[in-house]
Every structure is written in C-alpha cells, then in structure tokens.
C-alpha cells in the first residue's frame, strides 16, 4: 500500500433520491411537474458509482471514512440507508419539507455542503456527474466553486497519489488525465466502476449505523429558489413511419429523401 496516502482521507458522498431510471415519467395534467407519487424511486445511478468508488478507496485503505449525504424530503433516508448498506460509515440527511424539496436547486445543495464541511473536515466530495431527473450536471462544479476546491468531473479512473488524486476524465473527444490536490471534488461517470449490490446482512447492519438529521434552517442557508418553473410539458411525440420490406426498399426511400444520390 502506498504510504503517501493522506493519514486521514474522509470522503463525503452525495446520493440523490430520484425516480428510478426504468420508469417512464408522466407529466401532471396541470403541467406543474411530473407525477412522482406512487412511482418507484432509487439512488441516482451515477451517485451509486461515486459511492462505490469511495467505498473501494476505503477498502484499499486510501480513505478512512465514507459519509453519505442527501438533501431533500423525509424519504431521502431510504437512499441513505441503502448507501450505508453499500459501505458508507454514516449518513447525513439535510431535511427539507416535501413541499420544498421539488424546488431545491443544485446551488442550495452546494451551500448546505459548504456548511457541513466548515463544521467537520472532509478531504473530498464525491458525486455522480448528473442526476437523471433534472439532468442538470451542475452540483459538482458548484460545490467546487463554492468551496474553492479543484474539481475532477466525469471521472472514469481515480488514482490517489499522496495529497493528490490523479483522475482520468471522459471528455468530448476522448479522455484526459488531470491531477487535483486534496481537498477536491470528484464526479463519477458511468464507466468508473460497477456498483455492488447491498447484501441482506449488510442491509440489517446498516439499520444500526448513525444517520444524522439536520435541517436547512439548522445550517442557516438560503434556499430561496432562483428558478421558477412556468410550464412542464411532454415533448412532441414522433410518429412511427412503418416498415419497409427489404434493403432495396430502404435505399429507394433514402434516395427519395435525398440522402443518397440517385
């Protein structure tokens, strides 16, 4: 084991409760949002990857403690218990009433995190690259900005190296590699790892792990929305155009449409 790992690297991992990726979401008839009541929710898939990476670092003795956090309504505790079952040591729930949860913005999460980190030292924040509900892809960069920490987003490989993390990132034209000094913010891309399943014994054990609750009010942060939703709608539906019989019929159609020169 590399002796130059920091003596105590504590990792804070963000987990968001989102509508499960396999659910086909439906817009409310009054166009104010999507229907989330009675719909299967789970941990945002990218956050599971971020958590898995933190737990793996702990198993390699490169991290000493993994703390999961989630901000939102009371049901966020379910995803925090799952995070505990997958290897987090403890959990912090920043609770907001359900009515306000849908108005939370990544900026508010970043503000909450700043307070938590001011109270209790962490060496890294790990997050998923985006949440699959709002698809915002903001929180990592916002947190890094608000803390003035370096950021390593879209990580597909993470190598701790003393006081640094060497991170291979997925960028538009391929991959790049950067080095960020700790403390740092990291966001996980799809191919960073394969998250583990929570086993039944670990789910039982997770019930005894500490889960701390704090409110946005306790933290003294401003959660005034800056973005007002005016209308939520479904995108125009595409009509299926039907089948052609064979390749030559397909080519004829493409010629008609001018994609292939006749």
């Amino acid at each position, binding site marked *: 084991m590399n002796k130059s790992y920091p003596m105590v690297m504590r990792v804070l991992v963000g987990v968001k409760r989102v*509508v499960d990726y396999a659910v086909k979401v439906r817009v409310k008839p009054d166009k104010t949002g999507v229907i989330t009541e009675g719909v299967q929710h789970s941990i945002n898939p990218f956050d599971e990857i971020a958590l898995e990476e933190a737990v793996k670092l702990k198993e390699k003795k490169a991290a000493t403690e993994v703390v999961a956090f989630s901000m939102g309504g009371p049901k966020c505790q379910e995803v925090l218990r799952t995070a505990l079952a997958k290897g987090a040591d403890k959990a912090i729930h920043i609770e907001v009433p359900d009515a306000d949860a849908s108005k939370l913005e990544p900026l508010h999460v970043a503000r909450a995190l700043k307070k938590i980190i001011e109270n209790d030292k962490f060496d890294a924040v790990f997050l998923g690259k985006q949440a699959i509900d709002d698809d915002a892809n903001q929180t990592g*960069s916002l947190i890094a900005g*608000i803390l003035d920490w370096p950021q390593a987003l879209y990580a597909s490989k993470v190598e701790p190296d003393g006081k640094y993390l060497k991170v291979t990132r997925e960028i*538009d034209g*391929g991959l*790049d590699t950067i080095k960020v*000094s700790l403390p740092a913010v990291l966001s996980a891309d799809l191919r960073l790892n394969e998250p583990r399943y929570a086993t039944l014994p670990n789910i039982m054990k997770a019930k005894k792990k500490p889960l701390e609750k704090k409110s946005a009010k306790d933290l003294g942060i401003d959660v005034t929305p800056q973005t007002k*939703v005016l209308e939520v709608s479904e995108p125009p539906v595409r009509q299926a155009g039907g089948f052609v019989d064979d390749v030559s019929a397909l080519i004829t159609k493409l010629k008609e449409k001018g994609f292939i020169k006749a």
Partner: protein
Amino acid sequence: LQFNSSRVKSTLVIAEHDDSKLAPITLNAITAASKIGADISVLVTGATASKVAEQVAKINGVKRVLVAQDEKLKNNLPERVTPVVLASHKQFNFKHIIAGASAFGRGLIPRVAAKLESSPISDITAVHSPDTFSRTMYAGNVVVKVQSSAPVKMLTVRGTAFEQAKDGGAAQLENSPSFELKTDSSEFLGQELSKSERPDLATAKIVVSGGRGVKSADNFKLIYDLADKLGAGVGASRAAVDAGYCPNDMQVGQTGKIVAPELYIAIGISGAIQHLAGMKDSKVIVAINKDPDAPIFQVADIGLKADLFNAVPEMTKAL
C-alpha cells in the same frame, strides 16, 4: 474610447477551443446569445488565445472579443478560467454568461455561478426572453420552461438546438481585465483523443450508430463501412460502449452526446429511453433491428426488420 458598459445589457460567451480552432458548439452558443438581444462579448482564454480570438472576431453579432492569453491557461482548466471570467464580469457587469453544454461548459459555468450566487440553467434548448428558457429533464421525456431570477443568468446551451453563427463580423480584440491565477490545485497531465477521419458526431449531417446487436468490436467494422459510404459520423449505444465495442466518446444518449442529424440510422439498437434522449430530435430516423417489437421502431420514420449482419453489408454494397 472606453464606454461604461455597466448600464448596457450585455452577454458574455465563453469560447471553447483546442488551442488552434474554435469548437463549433461556441457558434451555437453565440446564436443562443443573440436571441437574448444584448451586446455580445466573447472571452477567449488559453495559451494561444489571440489566434483563436481572430476567428471569433469574424463571427456575425460579436461586438467585443476579450483575450486572456497566458501559458497558465493552456488546456483551460476550470480552476484557472474561473478567475478570468470573474475579472471580466467585474469590469463589464454581464447580465448573461453563456457557454456550450459540452464537458468544458458544464464544468465551468456552475463553478463561476457559485461565485456569483446564481443558480445556473443547464443545456437550454430555447430562449423565450432574457430570463425565460426551455430545457429538457428526465432523459428528454419532459420539457420545462423556466424563468430565472438569478442575479446573473448562467447558461449552458444545447448545441443541436441552435444554428451555428456565421461569419460576417468585425469585432475588436481587447485584452481581458487582469486576473490572478492559482496554479497549485490542479494540473493537466495529458489527453488521449480518439482520432477519426469521419465527420464529428455532434455536428455530422448523417449518423450511423451501432448497439448491442452488433455483438463485437470486430463487427463494428460493418457500421464504419456503411458510415464511410454515407460520409456519416459514427455513434453507439451505451450497451455497445460498455461491452467495449467502441470508445466512450461515441456514446449517444442522456449521458453521452446529444445529436440531431438530418439522418440517424440505428443498427442493432433496441431504443432505451436513455438512448432516445440523445437522438430523437433527428430529422429522419431509420432503424434496422431483427426484433419487430424493439422500442426504436416507435420513433423510426423508416423501419427495417432484418438481421443486421445481412442487411448492413447489403446496404453498403448497394451504395
């Protein structure tokens, strides 16, 4: 003559480039900026920024080009570009700060937004007014129209939703206000870009994509051969990328690239929600799949139920 711009509404677009050429998505971002109706400034940062700035100065609608040329800005790490943007904002008091919704823009805009206490709006697909925008959520299954009351509107722009700005301008180059960089927290070590003669996936007029049905990396040659005959870019589904048939940066979908070509040919792709999010705005969609119940056929304009291993070579040969 230095006019006091703090009373004039103005927009800053942050240029993306590879040290020699402007990234095309910046042209889409400039078009989105022009819909806001304010004066447009473009900030070019980097080790060879003035060279790129000359290209930017020729773009129609650009009023001012701010140049921050510094060896320390090579590769444009977000930790180093942020102070430059903030220094420029301090001087010119922009109402909007905009970049393309690429890995670069997504990494930079929220970082700057945090410093300005502004909630960013990601990946906008329409500008309705200076404070009202549309974007999609839930893998493109929901369109949301939002109004921002943020002190500075911090936006990333979906490239495929806006035309590319054309040449025809004659802006002046200007040095950016001075800035102070910390360089100890992050370092660029290197990159490995996928080399390809084919058109860029994000801007290609025709895209041919392969999925799990292609079954191996070797078989992907079928996809490349067809693409080459059509002069097309090549994409892939997540399943094909995860299985190692092709590199990650070819992935089309919610978590990969979003494309909207004239023609999209999906081969051996079932059409999961996450894939459709990346291609369903294509003008014409063709699907080749042996499963007639594959969801891709519900969005395809032309479907061909066939074994791709027969159909694709036959098609390539016929072209």
